[in-house]
């Protein structure tokens, strides 16, 4: 193959490319981690709502999941960025627009709420995978409904869910790239800036890809470690 292109990796190490990359990596990791924390918290709450006896809470939880999971994240980001501020009362809108880092905050909200729906769904299917007899056994010993979940179902389901939750975590990272569409200077945005400034797209996007692959590798390692640590002795993986 005759590639008519001379690589210049060195240019990545000098400013402005260097600081774009470093800031981009920091932004990608920061945004993803924060979004993940919120997604877990909201996702667990929504997931729990769907387990309660209250028909209303179940309906609300189900509606949330369907809504946020089925509208593409890109569309949601645009709605949060362009439409949501218009729906606010006038002085709230002024205050919102006056904040620093509005694109970042918007991306954080959009990504968190979107991922929360996916986390909630994973929780639902994780709990559905627990044999019904476990509920019956725990209830039959006089545990209250919350205690049943707290001491029997959740610890069991959590172990079952680790691979799925890990994969959602990596999805959060990859989805954070969409934040560039509303002007958040994360790593893909940085790669694009470098490309248009130096016409060195291959180098720039290699760095961006490497960032995602490295974080993914760390997540895989960490989850493998967690899975081994929490492995239930004598229980062969059921699936």
């Amino acid at each position: 193959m005759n590639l008519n292109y001379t690589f210049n990796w060195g240019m990545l190490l000098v400013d402005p490319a260097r600081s774009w990359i470093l800031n981009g990596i920091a932004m990608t990791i920061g945004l993803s981690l924060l979004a993940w924390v919120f997604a877990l918290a909201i996702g667990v709450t929504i997931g729990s709502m769907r387990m309660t006896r209250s028909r209303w809470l179940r309906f609300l939880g189900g509606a949330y999941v369907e809504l946020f999971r089925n509208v593409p994240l890109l569309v949601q980001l645009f709605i949060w960025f362009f439409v949501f501020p218009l729906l606010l009362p006038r002085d709230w809108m002024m205050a919102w627009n006056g904040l620093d880092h509005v694109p970042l905050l918007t991306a954080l909200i959009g990504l968190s709420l979107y991922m929360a729906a996916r986390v909630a769904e994973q929780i639902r299917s994780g709990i559905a995978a627990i044999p019904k007899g476990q509920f019956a056994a725990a209830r039959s010993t006089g545990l209250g409904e919350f205690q049943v979940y707290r001491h029997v179902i959740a610890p069991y389901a959590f172990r079952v869910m680790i691979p799925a939750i890990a994969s959602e975590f990596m999805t959060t990272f990859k989805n954070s790239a969409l934040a560039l569409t509303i002007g958040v200077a994360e790593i893909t945005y940085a790669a694009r800036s470098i490309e248009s400034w130096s016409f060195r797209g291959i180098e720039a996007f290699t760095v961006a890809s490497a960032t995602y692959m490295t974080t993914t590798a760390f997540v895989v390692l960490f989850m493998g470690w967690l899975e081994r640590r929490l492995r239930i002795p004598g229980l062969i993986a059921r699936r």
Partner: protein
Amino acid sequence: MSDPLVSIRNLGLRYGTFRALEDVSADFSRGTCIVICGPSGSGKSSLLRCINRLEEFQDGDVVFDGASLRACRDLPRLRSEIGMVFQHFELYPHLSVLDNVTLAPRIAKGKPRQEAEETARRLLDRVGIGDQAGKFPGELSGGQQQRAAIARALALEPKLMLFDEPTSALDPEMIAEVLRVMRDLARNGMTMLVVTHEMAFAREVADEIVFMDKGRIVERAETARFFSAPTAPRAREFLDRILHRL
């Protein structure tokens, strides 16, 4: 001994429109061991599950130790007085055998850990698996798991024990060890309702046999009389099949 521990009164249970139990009435006295048998789908499990209200029945009532289940506002307390043993053991796989036994006493009844563990070890010794306390359920044989499950139920000092086909999931060589534990329990005066197809156990241990078919109790008799001359044709048929299967 006139007041029964369990009094089932015109009990009716539906799953959707399907009638799983219809107009079931029966009294069970303290200290007796009753074996419940009948064909698959006749409502045996459903009946047991109504007695600790794992199923919400629609008609009639169950009176346990003088208190109506229908009016019961504190299900956990009711259930902690009734031990239940399941076909598939249902031990908690992520907890050690000891923790399986102590969980409910500690969490539901607020017993201090040390006291709960002493009781648990005594019970595990009693069912013959004192040396397995530190293992996880998945590391035990089926027979050992079921005995651990019996210990878990006994840890609440129940007034009544419900067994739902406790040996049906076990290999033949492990059935005996579980039945031995159950026999000892009965001999020591525990009130027991046992759904089982182990007719040798029934003949030896049960005071009475209840035979169910299509959601109803169709025959109830003292053990000896049931085996010598069951009156209901369905019971006779069933007995023939089950005794000649082996």
